[in-house]
């Protein structure tokens, strides 16, 4: 290697090292790392010297051991949410669980009716499953939430019809972290004998769930949102009264025919362990997360023109979604490149549409474009929150100095009074 190229590669190495400096992870609602304790359990079901068998193999101990592990995990998942293990169907994740629940129930009950009620702020796995059913001739009502993100029960009840067979409402919203009153919604559904599905991907392990008493028929879970592995989830399918659905995946008749496919033992064991830990540590963890979240909010709330998106009371501990008015979200993400966070700005997606969740709350486009989601989790430290606050304050000031809208706001010009050329 010549000296020149050596220098060049040394320079690019140091640039790479700088780029590799680990950002502070504040995107726990996107995914979480796998807890070390979970990794340890999973490894017992992978290598040649492990219990690697197929849980469906009935003729040898490899299969029996794997089956025992799957059943233990099923119990651990059920225990966190107050269900019977027989009511837990393993899937590849919450998206598959949502698809199975919504399409499975709609198809099974199509002779009873073809109307479904859901909300505009649902996850795309729910909304797109509903869109597919619309293409098949079903009718779907997409409810507007109140400006705080919660569903108005009166509006909800008014949307129900005689031919409504299914309601799908998420427990906790992924963007704004608000907690819906699923007990109240479920009671209304029960009275009318409508099947109620809840996407709980963002709530399991964060909010108390007791399906023994909750009037919920189907509930979707994900492992990777609570320190388990990606690629595994579950659907709770109530047994008494029995909820029936049409399978989406056909094959060996696994999971009582509701979801065929060889059970991913190591993933399932990981999910079980993650749910076991969540049950044990949730209360203490929530207390800690709430302190950190409040610290973060207290550190930025005195900045001018800052708006919290979504209700602050009915909200999980780890979520803070804020709009920094007159600062565009993607440029803020760039300025905060040492924070791993996400934005509702259109510029972070290819669609050029700002967050549909914030739009559904009635937020104007500017505030939707200016929103940032911070989600805090198990490995977040107080020191990281301190650094985040400092970075946010510097970045917002820098970008407002660059912003013509900020100047206009400061001069007292009403931005709505200007005729903008939309493009």
């Amino acid at each position: 290697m010549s000296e020149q190229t050596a220098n060049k590669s040394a320079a690019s190495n140091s640039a790479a090292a700088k780029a590799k400096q680990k950002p502070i992870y504040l995107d726990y609602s996107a995914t979480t790392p796998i807890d070390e304790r979970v990794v340890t359990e999973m490894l017992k079901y992978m290598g040649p010297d492990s219990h690697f068998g197929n849980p469906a193999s009935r003729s040898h101990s490899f299969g029996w051991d794997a089956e025992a592990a799957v059943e233990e995990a099923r119990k651990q998942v059920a225990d966190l949410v107050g269900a019977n293990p027989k009511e837990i169907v393993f899937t590849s994740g919450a998206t598959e669980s949502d698809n199975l629940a919504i399409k499975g129930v709609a198809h099974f009950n199509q002779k009873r009716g073809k109307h479904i009620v859901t909300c505009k702020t649902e996850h795309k796995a729910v909304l797109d499953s509903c869109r597919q059913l619309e293409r098949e001739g079903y009718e779907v009502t997409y409810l507007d939430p109140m400006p705080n993100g919660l569903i108005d029960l009166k509006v909800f009840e008014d949307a129900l019809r005689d031919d409504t067979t299914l309601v799908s409402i998420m427990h906790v919203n992924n963007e704004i972290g608000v907690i819906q009153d699923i007990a109240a919604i479920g009671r209304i559904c029960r009275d009318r004998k409508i099947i109620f599905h809840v996407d709980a991907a963002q709530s399991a392990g964060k909010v108390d769930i007791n399906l023994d008493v909750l009037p919920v028929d189907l509930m979707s879970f994900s492992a990777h949102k609570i320190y388990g592995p990606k690629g595994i989830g579950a659907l709770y399918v109530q047994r008494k009264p029995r909820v029936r659905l049409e399978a989406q995946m056909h094959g060996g008749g696994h999971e009582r025919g509701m979801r065929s496919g060889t059970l991913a033992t190591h993933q399932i064991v990981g999910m079980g362990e993650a749910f076991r830990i969540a049950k044990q540590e949730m209360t203490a963890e929530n207390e800690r997360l709430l302190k950190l979240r409040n610290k973060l909010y207290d550190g930025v709330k005195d900045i001018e023109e800052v708006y919290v998106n979504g209700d602050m009371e009915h909200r999980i501990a780890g979520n803070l979604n804020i709009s920094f008015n007159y600062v565009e979200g993607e440029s803020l993400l760039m300025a905060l490149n040492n924070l791993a966070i996400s934005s509702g700005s259109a510029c972070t997606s290819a669609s050029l549409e700002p967050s549909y969740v914030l739009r559904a709350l009635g937020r104007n486009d500017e505030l939707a474009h200016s929103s940032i989601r911070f989600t805090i989790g198990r490995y977040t430290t107080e020191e990281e929150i301190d650094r985040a606050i400092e970075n946010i304050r510097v970045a917002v000031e820098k970008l407002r100095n660059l912003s013509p809208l900020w100047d206009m706001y400061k001069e007292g010009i009403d931005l709505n009074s200007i005729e903008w050329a939309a493009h």
Partner: protein
Amino acid sequence: MAYGEKVLDHYENPRNVGSFENANNVGTGMVGAPACGDVMKLQIKVNDNGVIEDAVFKTYGCGSAIASSSLLTEWVKGKTLAEARQIKNTQIAEELALPPVKIHCSVLAEDAINAAIADYQKKQTI
């Protein structure tokens, strides 16, 4: 989204950020809309020979929009109005290596310089 080096450079060290007092030799172009996520304000100061002797900008928008307007202020300085009008969005997009979803940022920059020139010329005819 990963950014090119030139976008990052202009974003980290934006050139010619600021505003001019309104005057007869100043042209102001403001384009875009808050609802779309980007608004660019470009101002030029034109001397008696019809040459742009100074330019400043303020932009609300993504990193590519900020970089496009920053680059534009560098390019227009020292140019005549006719020369400045020749600047095309494709040149800006090429210089900054903008990905397809960010091409509209360079279009906005082209609109901004044309709007600033038009504003200046309108002032001269009054």
